[in-house]
């Protein structure tokens, strides 16, 4: 890494892709393809979906056919359209939830870790208390507190996002706080103290950038958890109204009774959508995590093997 590389090849995902080999590369590419497919679906849902997400049809519980490729639900919704539109809702919730929790978590972590003292103790106790709560229960309580259970598109998205945020802040808080405490003892921070820099300057200029290096990884891993929490909320009936947005968890909830009577299409497709999206994001996050750590990163063998490969190529 001593040599300067072009800006493009130093971008987060691209640089990792270049470094990867073998199975790790396979994992990364699979995760990347799945995640990009999810993002494209979210972006182009209005054009991809044959119908609107709240459009009702008289044919209820119709099996897959030419007019309704993935069939319809008991409420008369088109399953294909709802699944495609659902990607959009999921995307918005992820972005809002993760951005909010990163923002708050990083600031609290920096301040708490650097200043220490009673402030640090109080924040750690609060974070631990939140951690000790079952995630979904907390999200439900927040959802009820914010929107009395169910609501329109944006307030629904925000209530889901904020419920998730509350659960995630302690995660970011802990990571950043631990890094800050480690960095606080580093000579370069001490040298800033000796030079006479103020606490705010030290936090903003010296610690912030060094402490947030692991964030892209937590981001991808948390994004998949956010989807699961959203689906869980929807499944339990604390999600977003079907008339204001399409949501996979809600659809799954209403497909429960269908499954026992042999109507497989209402539950299968939203379920698959959740599984594939979460799988894609997890693969992406995990493989980036491994690739960022030089000890976990696989490499091509030096010397001999490459020479042998070259020879094989020449022979062939």
């Amino acid at each position, binding site marked *: *890494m*001593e*040599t300067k590389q072009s800006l493009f090849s130093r971008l987060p995902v691209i640089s990792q892709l270049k*470094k990867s080999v073998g199975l790790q590369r396979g994992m990364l590419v699979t995760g990347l393809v799945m995640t990009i497919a999810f993002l494209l679906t979210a972006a182009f849902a209005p054009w991809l979906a044959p119908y609107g997400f709240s459009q009702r049809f008289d044919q209820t519980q119709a099996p897959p056919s030419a007019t309704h490729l993935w069939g319809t639900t008991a409420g008369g919704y088109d399953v294909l359209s709802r699944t495609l539109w659902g990607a959009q809702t999921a995307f918005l919730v992820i972005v809002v939830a993760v951005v909010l929790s990163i923002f708050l978590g990083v600031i609290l972590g920096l301040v708490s870790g650097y200043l220490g003292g009673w402030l640090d103790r109080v924040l750690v106790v609060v974070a631990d208390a939140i951690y000790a709560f079952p995630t979904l229960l907390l999200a439900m309580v927040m959802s009820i507190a914010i929107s009395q259970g169910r609501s329109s598109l944006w307030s629904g998205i925000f209530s889901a996002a904020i419920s998730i945020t509350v659960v995630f802040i302690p995660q970011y808080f802990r990571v950043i706080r631990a890094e800050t405490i480690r960095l606080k003892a*580093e*000579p*370069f921070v*001490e*040298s*800033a*103290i*000796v*030079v*006479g*820099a103020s606490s705010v*300057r030290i936090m903003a*200029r*010296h610690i912030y*950038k*060094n402490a947030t290096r692991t964030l892209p990884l937590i981001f991808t891993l948390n994004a998949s958890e956010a989807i699961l929490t959203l689906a869980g909320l929807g499944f339990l009936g604390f999600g977003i109204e079907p008339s204001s947005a399409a949501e996979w968890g809600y659809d799954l909830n209403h497909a429960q009774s269908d499954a026992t009577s042999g109507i497989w299409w209402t539950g299968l497709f939203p379920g698959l959508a959740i599984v594939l999206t979460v799988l894609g994001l997890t693969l992406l996050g995990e493989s980036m995590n491994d690739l960022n750590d030089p000890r976990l990163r696989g*490499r*091509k*063998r*030096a*010397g*001999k*093997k490459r020479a042998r490969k070259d020879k094989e190529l020449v022979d062939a």
Partner: protein
Amino acid sequence: MSRHSENGVAPEAGLRPVLDVRDLKVTFATDAGDVFAVKDVSFNVAPGEIVAIVGESGSGKTVTAKAILGLLPETAQSSGAVIISGNDVISVSPHQLRQIRGRDVAMVFQEPSTALNPVYTVGWQIAEGLRAHRPEGKRVGRKEARKLAIEALDKVGIPDPEKRVDYYPHQFSGGQKQRVVIAAALALNPGLIVADEPTTALDVTVQAEILELLRELRDKFGTSIVLITHNMGVVADLADRVVVMFQGDVVEEATAEVLFANPKKDYTQKLLAAVPHLGRNSASAGFSERAFQDKEVVVEARELEIEYPGRLGSPAFRAVDKVSFTISAGEVFGLVGESGSGKTTIGRAIAGLNRTTGGSLKVLGYEMLHYKERSFRKHRKDVGFVFQDPAASFNPHLSIGECVAEPLIIHTDMSGPAVNRKVEDLLESVQLPRAYAKRFPHELSGGQRQRASLARGLALSPKLLIADEPTSALDVSVQAKVLELFREIQSELGFAALFISHDLAVVDILAEWVGVLYKGKMVEQGIGHQIMGKPQHHYTKRLLSSLPVPNPAEQAQRRALHQELLASR
């Protein structure tokens, strides 16, 4: 003396070498392409011979040592042959390799505190090798293993081995831990021990003991030793033959006497010339009384005490105990001591990084006992600090220019272009090219970084500079250059300096006045050459005599003197 005995000299014809390394090449796969760590290395070790591999960081000496034990990581590709008692380590199967390790060759690591597992007793760890190998084809019973472990501890001079075999690693001191590591290596009586910087993590007085132990092992049991080190003094003390490595190649190979007396290659000559030598080039040469006493007193410590609070129930630890000294403007005060002597604590207290708990410490007239960051901040611009590890003391996300500019931005209202000009001037004054302002810390070498660190410390022309072991993380040749630069700049700018180091020879080059710390107490202070030449306190004498000098003949004399000193106590 044993080193001149016939088994100590170069391998004789007919005597089968214990270790034979032929055309060893090691290549690492990295993100930046293949790195050739060891290019073409051949040497051998006769029974009972101590061969030192010396070189600076990046010379491939540690990689060579690891290749001997087959400990290279997966990313490494090695070729050539490493033959230990008839087996080629590079081509044998993993099973055979396990057989060879411990039985024919064992390793002593650099850091004894991490080489031992803290959750097992030392006896268990020594016996582990015995159980793994089943000498003479039968299983080693618990009683038998214990007996052998006690024997091994006895061999390496641990007192009361029957009792201490059940101790855990944390109950031993650093030097004793290294003895335990050596005992574990000896458990199966291997013909060869590879010692990778076995004394680097230890204090000089402890280092002398470990070197003595290694020499005894060779004399008593005929064990061959491959000694990997960067310390020329250690080489002169112990080695029969020396292999000098540079960037993966063997530069020169000769017996120790020949190599130190007349090195043939330029690189070896330069390397030896760079080693600081006690008594040469002393800063206080010709002084008969303390200089700079007519100048303003910059730092004044009276009965200074610094305590670290203990955990609940345990008493506080007193790191500095009733220490008194002064530093006058323009004077370089050298503070010497072993690890745990409190030298760094004093330096940090002067910079306000540690709180004082008793006595009085006045820095530029400010009483540090009632320290408040807010009120001390105005004095910050007058105190510069150079840290030990140049790699860690720069923020990796800021360029060198931004790092050096930081004190200017905080304490002056200079405009952007003026700051940039000043930073470039500063870099030039520490002999770095102006263009380096735009580089990032990882793009500089260790010595260059330490120069930039010096530039930052001097950015505001401070009245006092504290340098905490500024050269101990550097290679000797780089150290020599940084010391030279420090001396030049100090005489040019005339700031007062507190120079902290464990290396007496380094302190002697820079400091006119030297203080010796031992367990938090200042046992002796005086003019540099007098302390080094005619030490008064027993500890100073011991410290001086245990420092190995890079000259085998002189070192043999010093060693005898050291033994005498220890015996007389």
